[in-house]
């Protein structure tokens, strides 16, 4: 079904957003740790371009490949706004800004899923 692609995409986006939220949480928690450098996840567009079709296991000897979602989001040192003398590169304001972005994107994601779900249910009920 064509619409189901939307659900899988939305699910991947939600998982990417959750990973990003975790990264923000560790940045904020380590905001006063000497030598800690701020991290961020790879942008979702690059995650999306790496997605490939999953391989089918047609014989019992085949090894099941790991699921592509979640693994593609790697954490890298982000370009932070400032680095303080102790070597810590977390800027709390920047993290709050990123957290706001994540919150908005998640609300949008959930809204899209809800509206598509509603459309499907309308089609089923009539």
């Amino acid at each position, binding site marked *: 079904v064509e619409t189901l692609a939307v659900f899988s995409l939305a699910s991947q986006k939600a998982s990417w957003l959750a990973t990003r*939220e975790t990264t*923000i*949480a560790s940045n904020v*928690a380590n905001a006063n740790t*000497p030598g800690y450098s701020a991290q961020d996840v790879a942008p979702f567009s690059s995650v999306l371009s790496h997605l490939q079709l999953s391989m089918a296991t047609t014989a019992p000897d085949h090894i099941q490949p790991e699921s592509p979602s979640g693994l593609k989001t790697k954490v890298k040192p982000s370009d932070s706004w400032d680095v303080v003398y102790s070597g810590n590169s977390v800027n709390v304001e920047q993290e709050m800004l990123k957290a706001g972005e994540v*919150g908005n994107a998640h609300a949008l994601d*959930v809204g899209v899923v*809800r509206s598509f779900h509603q459309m499907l249910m309308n089609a089923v009920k009539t």
Partner: protein
Amino acid sequence: MSLDPLVSSLRIAGSGMQTQSSRLRVVAENIANAQSTGASAGSDPYARKTITFESALDRASGENLVQVKSVGVDTTPFRIEHMPGNPAADEKGDVKMPNVDLLFEMEDMREANRSYEANLQVVKQSRQMLTETIDLLRS
């Protein structure tokens, strides 16, 4: 990651709040003992305490938690005040006062408060994201 990332965020932010509370406790000790001299003549007064954090990787879940690395002692020299009647005064009448500077402590307290609030904000946001996802089932 074994746990759901949003639940991990809650745990990480919790560890951040815990360490910032420990920091606030050290600040409280320092301020409370800002005037604590030694008991006997010429003895050392209360020495200011310092706290350092370190990043701790929880290998089971891959979470970047934070924890208290050590609570140390500030080695700046003590202030000397001339108070001949004080029980802690030496033969010249000098009393060693603690090396606590209230301005430093106030600044430290504000920064701990700010970091604590930032962690709290992350907790609120993660909870909201979880709630939004769960509310999908409700429509």
